[in-house]
């Protein structure tokens, strides 16, 4: 089966019903996508399939044959971070980090689809993702900043906007 993963053509040998998550993690050794619940409930396994966020734990390999897959490793490197990665770093939007790659990919898709600095729209776009460290305010801050096209100074972290994510006060 053939895939393009992070811009590189890959031929994989996993069975056709193998969840994409384990093709990535176990065969291709790309461990950025996480097995959080393996039930489609938490969003930690989210990757982009032809630019759309998808739960890789529920996506059989055969359903994505020929597709272009993007994982956290494909967004940017430590030396050349993508804006969304810079935004998450500068805004301290990762605590334990386990949900981070899924959230960043959902955020990347939101921005690629023309999403703007609108907290409610961002919340809607990220609503399928659980962060149990409850860092939602800073996550929304980061996505809003990336959507605005902010420049990020990675030698410091930003303060929190102090805003709630809406409806929780």
């Amino acid at each position: 089966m053939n895939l393009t993963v992070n811009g590189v053509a890959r031929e994989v040998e996993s069975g056709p019903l193998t969840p994409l998550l384990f093709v990535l993690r176990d065969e291709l050794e790309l461990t950025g996508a996480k097995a959080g619940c393996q039930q489609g409930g938490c969003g930690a396994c989210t990757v982009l399939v032809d630019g759309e966020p998808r739960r890789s734990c529920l996506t059989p390999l055969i359903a994505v044959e020929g597709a272009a897959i993007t994982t956290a490793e494909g967004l940017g490197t430590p030396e050349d971070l993508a804006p969304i990665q810079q935004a998450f770093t500068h805004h301290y939007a990762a605590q334990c980090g386990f949900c981070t790659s899924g959230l960043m990919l959902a955020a990347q898709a939101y921005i690629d689809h023309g999403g703007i600095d609108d907290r409610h729209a961002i919340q809607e776009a990220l609503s399928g993702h659980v962060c149990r460290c409850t860092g939602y305010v800073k996550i929304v801050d980061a996505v809003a900043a990336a959507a605005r096209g902010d420049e990020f100074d990675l030698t410091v972290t930003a303060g929190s906007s102090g805003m709630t994510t809406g409806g929780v006060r």
Partner: protein
Amino acid sequence: MKAVGARLPRYDGIAHVTGRSTYVDDVRIPGTLWVKALRSPHHNAAITKLDTSPAEAMKGVHAVVTAADVPLLVYGHLSALGIPGDEPLLASGEVRYEGQPIAVVAAESEELAMAAVEAIRIEYEERPALFDIRKAFDPGAPVVHEWGNWYPHFEGEMDRRQIRKGDIEWAFDKADTIVQGVYRPAAIEHVPLETQVCQVVPEADGRLTIYSCTQALYFSLGVVCAHLQLPLNRVKVVGGTVGGGFGGKVDTATETMCALLAQKSGRPVKWRWTREEEFLCSSTRAPWHMEIADAVTKDGWILGRKMLTLHDSGAYARFSPYGLTKHSFHHAGAYTIPNIHFDGYVVFTNRVPTTAMRGFGVTSVSFAVETHLSRIAVELGIDPFELRLKNANRIGDTTPNGVVLTDPSTVPTIQAIADAIGHELTAEYRTTTGDTRSGAFLPEHLVAQLGNPEDH
């Protein structure tokens, strides 16, 4: 002090956003076997038959471990502090909570490990279960623990954490009114995004390397070595990157069983709990039952507090005696109460054992105390901020367990909260400070409890 107040970048921030942080599940070890557990479907039952031979006979199953394989079966999470153990690593002869592990298997694949668990033959004789800590003391209640229904090993072999201070009879005689309340926060599952996971590698020199998501690496090292009866230098625990813990990864949940399987099979093993296991079988924050009766004056002084706490430990003690001890030290909250009568019990039930979670033992009592303070304010018809500021800890005040406070921040904290939400305080309460009590804030009944911080 350059770091104080600075907004420093986090040292693992770039690793997190590039998907390169190595969590336990991300460690790649060739030839790893999968681990699955046979778990109790019952809350309380005798095991009348256990036969693992069908699982052992399956091709691709490399090891099955039961209670019979554990060098030291019963050990406690607080045993290193001299507290006797009560929990078998794997159930032996009986199960006391749904989800309790009875046998673990290591097999070539996750599916095969699940099939091997299914193949184990087991029979149970169900027994009455106990879930409500309030019923644990009833004469007819089922006895669910070999020590009885509550923990009997506090200092001096006391069966409760007891605090007595001042003259509680005097306080209740002198009070204008008694304000009572009962507070019952429920169990909470931590739900870390990363479920319990570990990998154990039997090294060529006979040592074991354990990759663990533990929050308490040295506890895990001690617990593993105790059960396996190994010196500490035979085990290396690699931790550090935890995908959320919140207290739920303080208990040694997986490492010991995996270490035994690695020893027995001679192969690396990995156990990653499913989300269902995490919800059903991992320890939770405890449910609590707290009863408070405060002797108060009509102008808002708390003369005395009687409190009863029941702490649901689940089926075994684990860290609960420690959690209740912290709870007891904080049961007056951030307030000075000179006369105290506190009894707290660690109660056993047929629930999953409970553990730390964000403010172990203290979150529950803070919820109860603050709700109770508000209740007093309503019953007396006085301002809840002024009630709190009046009784708030100041320098020289003593806590229920006799600690003289040197620098309590209660008064400025409450004033800052009032300020933040626009709550008007009268001049007397706006200007009072956390300094040693004097004037209107040193009534007769608090004179005797003033201590000298210099002595501490």
